[in-house]
């Protein structure tokens, strides 16, 4: 009697305080009314799937209602299910009698499902989709409505340091493969409901979840619609990594320059979101894509913003130098030593000539050979098992470097040039930017060895023309350098202190231009004279 009364009050209260979740409409294949039918159907679909689990049981303490849960082994939080969920479902003393106007599933929903995220379905296909996505399915006998419970779990990598974009000062967290963890990493940094994650499913087979992250009211106008449109055009069966998506949504797909900014760092994504950009996050990969992106952005490290602005500026200058080294140094070396000896100071010319005395190959053969050798060593360094790492270093440094010089095959000057180029390339903070420059070096070397400085310059001009014509989601790729936006320079070539960065980048942040209301002067308060 007492229990009945409280139950009534609770149900009345809950009925008043919230509306019951909408039951999704039946699709092409509605859920059958009997448990057996549904089970048979699922068994048929999941035939030969050893990881598919069906567990029938009786609902409630009395065990009057037959039910069953289905799930994919390894994708759900087993611990939670057996300890909490099943406990409640099987042993709770609940009133499960059919009543007028209140079907059984509603009562189950209200009283027994101790889970936060519950979806009610009538469509079998949607149900299957939910189950393969790592959720728990729950059928009740003689109910044409079933539940999908969000108890996703299973094994995933812990959040750890981002290896491709390491910093000395700054957050250490990097994205992981699980998109929910990744979104939480971002949400933790932007605690606002204005941060949105819009969900899309891409890949007819892989059914990969893709989220578009952006800040409402701040993101570039029409950007989200445009991203959605481009994403929806993708018809491929599988998305395994964000690289797949990247190639589908670029403005100029044939270019060597990547027009999205892949990053592993949540703080980098957050910085970009705050500039009015959006990020495309893909499940099963730790790399999110920042769009739109400009080339200067690819040459910036997250750390530039965390160290003091003077040092940040110094890093930017240094990187400007190293880009040039990485791109043109070998070409320049070839051009000067085999075409333009008059450009060298006499003493340098003499030294070089003395070094090169008796060497068998012309400079460009030497340089090409050593550049390729370095690329081989580097590639080997990425692929090889960790235990043989030192061996490769020895081969690279001693055998190829030292021995080649001592044997009189390669001049030490070439080794210096190749080494400087390689080291310069490694200073570039994003893999996307670094790889592009790494590749473009070779055509420039080719041009330089055939035409000297003229060839080199023509090559550079072609690159410049190309890069100027690129756009990333409508934003010029060289912005804010070309077209020049003076206020953008403060965060491109130099990095001004944060209290001077009043405006967001004009190209992307126009919608809500000011980051901070007034320019704080940074002066001490006026002292009372005490007269």
């Amino acid at each position, binding site marked *: 009697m007492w229990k009945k009364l409280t139950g009534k009050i609770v149900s009345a209260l809950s009925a008043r305080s919230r509306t019951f979740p909408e039951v999704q409409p039946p699709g092409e294949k509605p859920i059958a009314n009997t448990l057996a039918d549904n089970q048979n159907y699922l068994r048929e679909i999941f035939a030969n799937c050893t990881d598919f689990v069906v567990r029938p049981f009786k609902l409630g303490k009395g065990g009057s209602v037959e039910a069953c849960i289905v799930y994919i082994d390894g994708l759900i939080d087993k611990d939670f299910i057996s300890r909490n969920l099943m406990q409640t479902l099987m042993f709770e003393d609940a009133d499960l009698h059919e009543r007028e106007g209140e079907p059984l599933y509603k009562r189950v929903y209200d009283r027994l499902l101790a889970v936060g995220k519950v979806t009610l379905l009538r469509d079998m296909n949607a149900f299957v989709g939910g189950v393969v996505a790592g959720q728990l399915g729950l059928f009740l006998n003689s109910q044409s409505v079933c539940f999908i419970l969000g108890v996703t779990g299973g094994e995933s990598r812990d959040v750890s340091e981002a290896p491709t974009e390491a910093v000395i000062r700054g957050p250490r967290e990097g994205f992981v493969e699980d998109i929910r963890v990744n979104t939480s990493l971002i949400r933790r940094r932007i605690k606002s409901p204005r941060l949105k994650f819009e969900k899309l499913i891409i890949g007819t087979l892989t059914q990969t979840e893709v989220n578009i992250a952006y800040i409402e009211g701040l993101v570039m106008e029409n950007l989200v619609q445009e991203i959605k449109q481009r994403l929806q055009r993708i018809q491929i069966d599988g998305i395994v990594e964000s690289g797949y998506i990247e190639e589908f949504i670029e403005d100029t797909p*044939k270019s060597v320059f990547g027009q999205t900014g892949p990053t592993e760092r949540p703080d980098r994504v957050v910085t970009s979101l705050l500039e009015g950009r959006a990020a495309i996050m893909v499940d099963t990969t730790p790399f999110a894509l920042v769009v739109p992106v400009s080339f200067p952005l690819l040459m910036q490290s997250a750390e530039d913003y965390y160290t003091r602005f003077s040092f940040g500026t110094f890093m930017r200058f240094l990187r400007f130098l190293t880009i040039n080294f990485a791109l043109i140094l070998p070409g320049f070396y070839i051009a000067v*030593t*085999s*075409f333009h*000896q*008059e450009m060298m100071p*006499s003493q340098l*010319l*003499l*030294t*070089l*000539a*003395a*070094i*090169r*005395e*008796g*060497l068998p190959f*012309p*400079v*460009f053969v030497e340089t090409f050979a050593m550049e390729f050798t370095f690329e081989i060593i580097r590639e080997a360094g990425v692929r090889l098992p960790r235990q043989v790492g030192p061996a490769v270093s020895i081969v690279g440094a001693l055998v190829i470097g030292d021995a080649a*010089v*001592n*044997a*009189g095959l390669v001049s*030490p000057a070439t080794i210096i040039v190749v080494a400087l180029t390689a080291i310069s390339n490694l200073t570039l903070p994003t893999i996307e930017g670094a790889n592009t420059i790494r590749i473009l070096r070779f055509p420039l070397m*080719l*041009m330089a*060895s*055939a*035409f*000297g400085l003229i060839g080199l310059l023509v090559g550079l001009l072609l690159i410049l023309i190309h890069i100027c014509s690129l756009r990333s989601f409508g934003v010029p790729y060289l912005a804010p350098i070309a077209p020049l936006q003076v206020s953008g320079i403060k965060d491109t070539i130099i990095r001004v202190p944060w209290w001077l960065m009043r405006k967001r980048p004009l190209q992307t942040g126009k919608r809500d231009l000011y980051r901070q209301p007034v320019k704080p002067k940074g002066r001490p308060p006026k002292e009372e004279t005490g007269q």
Partner: protein
Amino acid sequence: MSRLVALALVVLSLIPLAGCWSRRETESLAVITAIGIDTAFQGEKKVYRVTKVVLAPKPGGGGPGGGGGRQGGGAKREYSVLTTEGPTIEEACRRLAVRLSRITFLDQIRVVLFGEEMSKEGVSEALDFLTRYQDIRLRTTVMVTRGQAETMLRSNPEFESEISREIKGFVDNAAETTAKIAESNLEEFTERVITPGEDAFAPVLERVPLKKKSSVMAESGETFLVKGMAMFSSDKLAGWLNEREVRGIWLAMGKAKQGDLSVEVNGNTVSYVFSKPKEKLRVRIDDEQNVTAMLNVRVSGGVAESQSQAVNTQEGLANVEKAVNAELEGVIRSALEKSKAAGSDIMGVGRLVEREDKALWNQIRAQWPQRYRQVEFEVKVESKVERIGLKNKPVQGKLLK
């Protein structure tokens, strides 16, 4: 897509088509650092004797176990001097190619030497050769040698391992600090030769016997010095100036940066170091026959050494200034007189006349070298002593009184 492939193929095939045109490896070059041009006679025929200093780079540790690094000290000779003759300079140069296993590389020439004989006969042909193509730098130092350029280039350098560096070093250093040498580069020299109303000059390289045999110079009893200035009238060598006169004319041209000067004041010698000279040259044309050039030189500087002359009074300073004025006016006058005698308008008075009175210039232009001899010079030097250093009195002052 097929268009793109075709385009890529065309571009790729263009690269070997050019075939590394004009590519030359560093080690295949015979780097020439100095060139001397003389005239000589083969029987009756006048020919050019071209002497070149060719660097021979020593292999810097190539070969197994070489270990790299530079070998040999600075005093070791690492060049050869080669002389060839030919009716034109170009031909003489080409004849050198037969004797050399490498491509002659003129781009690194530091010094061009004109022999005395050749300079007297005219340097236009040599200048034509030197400036026709871009490979010889226009900033190359031009010098005139007393005697044959060849003998200069064949003498041993004293401090440097290579002779052109030594000669060039002399000129740069002396021009910078003492103003005793009038620097002249190929561009300026050529321009002055071809511009009417302005004549060329060049520093003079001279061989002098050593009085004492120093240990450095054990091998030969001679060294060479950069000394004085050679004045040209049109393209021909017309006269010489000595060191003191060079300093005067260099000041008068406003090109001296700093220099020193010793003057007699009340029987004592005072050393004056000047810097920041300013000069003004104007012409006054009274009539066709009377052209007067007014030269006003202002120098300021300090006392560097005063043997026993007190310079701590207004009077003392005024005396020094007066003596400096007199000395400078004297050397400038004497230099200008010599240039008038040689008919070499190194000050560019003709250009000023042209600017002042174009019509008159057009009339007298043809006979300008002769007319230049009649130009009157009014020279005025104003000097100032600005610094006397840390000493009020000469150190000897205490002993004297």
